[in-house]
């Protein structure tokens, strides 16, 4: 109990000594909170994006088959479908046309998607995702909100896109996707398979890739192996791989940015080291007086330890809270360019940062640990100031 009361006294004293040097302590805290804010908002943004993606990609096509030529992907002949008919366990094969359409005026890339939704899982319910109108018939298109605002000007019901030979192809607007699906469909033009082929001037018997739906999810890997054996010139991508790649890409980016932010941390650590080791004559005198009136070296060390803990705890909570606010309410506006690239069309990001122990601990280890480690030796240097220097 004595030890607990003693620690409490030492905490009291370290608070009062931080307060007496409030300019210095506040400076350290502000800088520290800033560094924590940067690292934490970055980590939270990455995590929120990957979490959102992981949640949604759980419903992505189980297997995608792409034809490869010379290491590059190219259109796949529809006849490949028949070659797969021998594989037991495949529920449906859906050919898709998928491509980008570059809008030279706005500089945005649209995603063109042509497929027959009725052979996709849940495809029959797709109407629920469409705000006004229905699924596209021939020469019709369903637009994402972002494209709608740009191409159709919000109220046009007919508009045209260029074919590769610069002839125009007209589309009637069949409807728009709901705003809730912006995160998925903001840049999308969804149309009939034939219209998409026509727009990209693709041959009749070709598609971009084949989506395979499997009856039993636990057989995905086996079926994918069989497909790969049957169609050696294709790449077979499973859902799990898409998910892992996505995680890895964002993990890579967040690691890369963390390295950049670590330089900020490093400079803060040097700053903190400097502040902690630069003892003023008053501080030296204070410690020697404390020691001669009966404070142990270890008491002074503990005192300094508590100062470090208080500074880092307060900075951490403040910085972390600000980071949450930044990510949750301000769409992580400081980091969007780094994480999302230079895209022109951006849906409003409603990020929901994950709040969990692991993430918090990660940021804590990246920031507080180096700070405490950097201040321990200066603290010891201060603590060994001899007691008898108070006598002269």
């Amino acid at each position: 109990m004595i030890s607990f009361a003693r620690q409490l006294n030492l905490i009291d004293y370290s608070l009062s000594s931080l307060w007496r040097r409030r300019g210095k302590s506040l400076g350290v805290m502000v800088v520290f909170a800033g560094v924590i804010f940067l690292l934490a908002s970055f980590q939270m943004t990455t995590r929120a994006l990957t979490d959102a993606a992981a949640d949604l990609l759980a419903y992505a096509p189980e297997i995608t088959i792409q034809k490869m030529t010379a290491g590059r992907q190219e259109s796949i002949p529809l006849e490949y479908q028949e070659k797969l008919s021998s594989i037991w366990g495949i529920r449906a094969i859906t050919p898709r046309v998928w491509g980008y359409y570059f809008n030279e005026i706005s500089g945005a890339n649209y995603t063109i998607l042509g497929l027959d939704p009725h052979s996709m899982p849940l495809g029959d319910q797709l109407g629920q995702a469409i705000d006004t109108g229905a699924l596209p018939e021939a020469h019709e298109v369903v637009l994402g909100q972002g494209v709608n605002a740009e191409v159709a000007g919000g109220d046009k019901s007919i508009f045209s896109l260029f074919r590769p030979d610069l002839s125009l192809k007209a589309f009637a607007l069949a409807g728009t996707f709901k705003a809730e699906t912006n995160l998925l469909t903001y840049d999308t033009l969804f149309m009939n398979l034939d219209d998409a082929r026509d727009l990209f001037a693709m041959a009749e018997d070709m598609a971009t890739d084949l989506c395979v739906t499997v009856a039993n999810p636990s057989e995905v890997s086996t079926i994918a192996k069989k497909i790969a054996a049957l169609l050696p010139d294709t790449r077979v991508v499973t859902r799990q791989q898409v998910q892992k790649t996505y995680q890895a890409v964002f993990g890579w980016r967040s690691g890369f940015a963390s390295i950049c932010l670590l330089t900020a941390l490093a400079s803060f650590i040097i700053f903190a080291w400097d502040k902690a080791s630069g003892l003023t004559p008053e501080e030296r005198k204070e410690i020697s007086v404390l020691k001669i009136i009966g404070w142990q070296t270890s008491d002074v060390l503990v005192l300094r330890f508590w100062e470090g803990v208080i500074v880092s705890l307060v900075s951490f909570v403040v910085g972390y809270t600000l980071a949450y606010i930044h990510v949750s309410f301000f769409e992580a506006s400081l980091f969007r360019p780094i994480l999302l690239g230079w895209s022109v069309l951006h849906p409003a990001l409603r990020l929901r940062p994950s709040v969990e122990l692991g993430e918090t601990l990660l940021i804590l280890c990246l920031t507080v640990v180096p700070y405490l480690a950097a201040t321990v030796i200066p603290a010891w240097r201060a603590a060994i100031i001899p007691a008898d220097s108070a006598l002269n």
Partner: protein
Amino acid sequence: MAASLIELEKVCKTYNQDRPNQVRALVDIDLSIAANAMVCLQGASGSGKSTLLSVIGCVFPPTSGRATIAGKALSRMPDRFLTIHRLNTIGFIFQHFNLLPGLTVLENITLPLMPLGVGPGERRERAGRLMAMLSIGHRANFPVSQISGGELQRVAIARALVNDPPIILADEPTAHLDHALSLAFMEIMVDLQQAGKTIILTSHDQLITRHPAVERIIGIEDGKIHVP
């Protein structure tokens, strides 16, 4: 309590031992001071007076010889145990008071109680008694930078007494005080002696050296006791 509270036998203190800049600050000091005595150490600066005070005050152990302070032999004791012993037995009053400027009177007085784990209520109570005795109670929450020299002296005395140590060491306590305040200081010391404390002063001030309560004057010269 034993007749002599402080017992030094052949005490030597050498700074920078075995190095070219070695200094022998104390040489074969034999000294014994009885409990409840009031003695004055006298010597020029550099005579070894502060070193002797440090040994008696358990600030560092002697290089050789036996020093027994309040029943404990100090020879080559690690710093940690010296500090514990110092906390329990010695009250220091410094020449420049050595109060911490940012703290209030109350906080300064209770500093020695902090590592003992004494709670804020009891700290306030113990300091309150001393402040009342030294009539500085009305200054309790003033920063020490805002009070007068005489009051500073009393705060320093209160801090030395707050642990209730048997020995009070005062290093040139009146050097920065005027005549009246010095007299008042000596009155307090006399009261403390009557309350059972052992008091050791260092001073050149005739007010102290000729004070009737001072039983014994110990002269020091070149690290040796010198009989005046």
